[in-house]
């Protein structure tokens, strides 16, 4: 008994030391300076989110966000390859940024007030509503048909809250990755998977056994995110985004990645 009690006290002491003795507040150097000194940008991108971030057959990162990351590297170092791409999910991308594992999130982050509290957002670069991905045979026509049904969402994605609010009678089941939510629909684990319109449309195109339904609901803008308070870096990001619009890069990327589903998207 005595030994256990002492062991317990030790555990609590170590726990407290870990919890309270963490790093102090950060110094004020902008990540922009750190990146320039390092000579390489470390960007968090998605790997399961067509057409913004996926892995192609040869194992390379491809997608709209990936091209933006390369463009940033080009602007910073005059070499589009000076960028390290780190795979992130909807759930872990902001923790990755906060913990310094990445410099910047270019990974379909929907701008919300809650997230504004913890990161610095760029100007919007895309506008996305939400759609449903259902089996081809499904008769569901939108979120309104999901009462009493099982709806898959990705943990940390905005649709977790949206579905809870708009269709509280749906049974939400949450997964860590887009690919797992798709599998859940294919395996009959969920009646529908709700996510950003653009990814649902792309997934429906890639998977003939599934289809996209619904009218895009609650459209919201995507932003690029850097650490909270880093105004120097976000100012640079905004300037570069503006340049991309002026020099036609943005239009070119839009045509490359969205042309075939353009009709179903909310235009920014």
């Amino acid at each position: 008994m005595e030994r256990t009690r002492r062991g317990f006290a030790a555990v609590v002491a170590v726990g407290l030391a870990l919890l309270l003795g963490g790093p102090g507040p950060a110094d004020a150097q902008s990540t922009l300076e750190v990146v320039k000194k390092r000579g390489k940008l470390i960007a968090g991108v998605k790997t399961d989110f067509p057409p913004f971030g996926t892995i192609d057959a040869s194992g390379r990162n491809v997608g709209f966000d990936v091209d933006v990351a390369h463009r940033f590297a080009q602007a910073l170092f005059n070499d589009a390859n000076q960028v390290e791409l780190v795979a992130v999910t909807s759930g872990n991308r902001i923790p990755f940024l906060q913990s310094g594992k990445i410099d910047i999130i270019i990974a379909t982050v929907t701008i919300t007030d809650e997230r504004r509290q913890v990161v610095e957002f760029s100007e919007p670069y895309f506008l996305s509503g939400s759609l449903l991905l259902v089996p081809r045979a499904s008769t569901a026509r939108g979120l309104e048909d999901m009462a009493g049904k099982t709806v898959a969402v990705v943990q940390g994605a905005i649709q977790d809250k949206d579905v809870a609010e708009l269709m509280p009678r749906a049974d939400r089941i949450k997964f860590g990755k887009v690919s797992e939510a798709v599998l859940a629909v294919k395996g009959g684990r969920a009646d529908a998977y709700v996510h950003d319109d653009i990814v649902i449309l792309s997934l429906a195109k890639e998977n003939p056994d599934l289809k996209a339904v619904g009218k895009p609901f609650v459209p919201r803008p995507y932003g690029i995110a850097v650490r909270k308070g880093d105004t120097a870096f976000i100012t640079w990001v905004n300037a570069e985004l503006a340049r991309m619009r002026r020099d036609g890069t943005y239009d070119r990327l839009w045509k490359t990645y969205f042309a075939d589903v353009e009709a179903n998207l909310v235009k920014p």
Partner: protein
Amino acid sequence: MTAGPTAYSFAWSAVWRGLPYLLQGAAFTVFVSALAMVVAVALGLVLAALTEVRGGVARPLVRAYVEVFRNTPLLIQIFIVYFGLPQLGWRLSPFLSGLSALVIYAAAYNAEIFRAGLEAVPRGQHEAARSIGLSELGAQRFVIVPQAIRIAFPALGNNLVSLVKNSSLVSTIGMVELMFVANDIAFNNFRTFEIYGAAALLYVLLVLALTRALHLAERRMARAR
């Protein structure tokens, strides 16, 4: 390694606000782990007993089972049961998927642990039991198995501790246990250190309670000797 300065100020109120949900997750962790433990121990015993039967197909089948499930990651087993089997037309509920994956994985280890226990009982014990007039079944029931369990107990305890921690993997298939709840809270309030720290502390408490119970059981067995 790090990409730049890290701004982080602690907000312990996040833990406080998330505590009811975290405790709900911990309760589910206890439930699914306890259930998996009972079934995995029983299954392990049966499998170990089957390997003692010479001849026939039972022994190679059990060996194959143990090698397959002990030598593959639990996460793959969980995904096969949850995502893979439905494509073959066999759909277990999410709860049964997670539970059965935990059970088949832990039972493979338990079978090995009990088999080692059985083999560690000196051969003379069996001969002595038979020579005082016990039947084969009686010798096993009263002499061999009790000693085997006592020998296997420390290794079994370690495996059960692993089981509690491994149960966090069923968070990947949407089961609302402690790890899932920690993700759910941290992904929305972004207080990762506080929330995962609190979850880790809860796991420590759960495992301490388990090791304490195992310790008491071991002492009782020692007294019964």
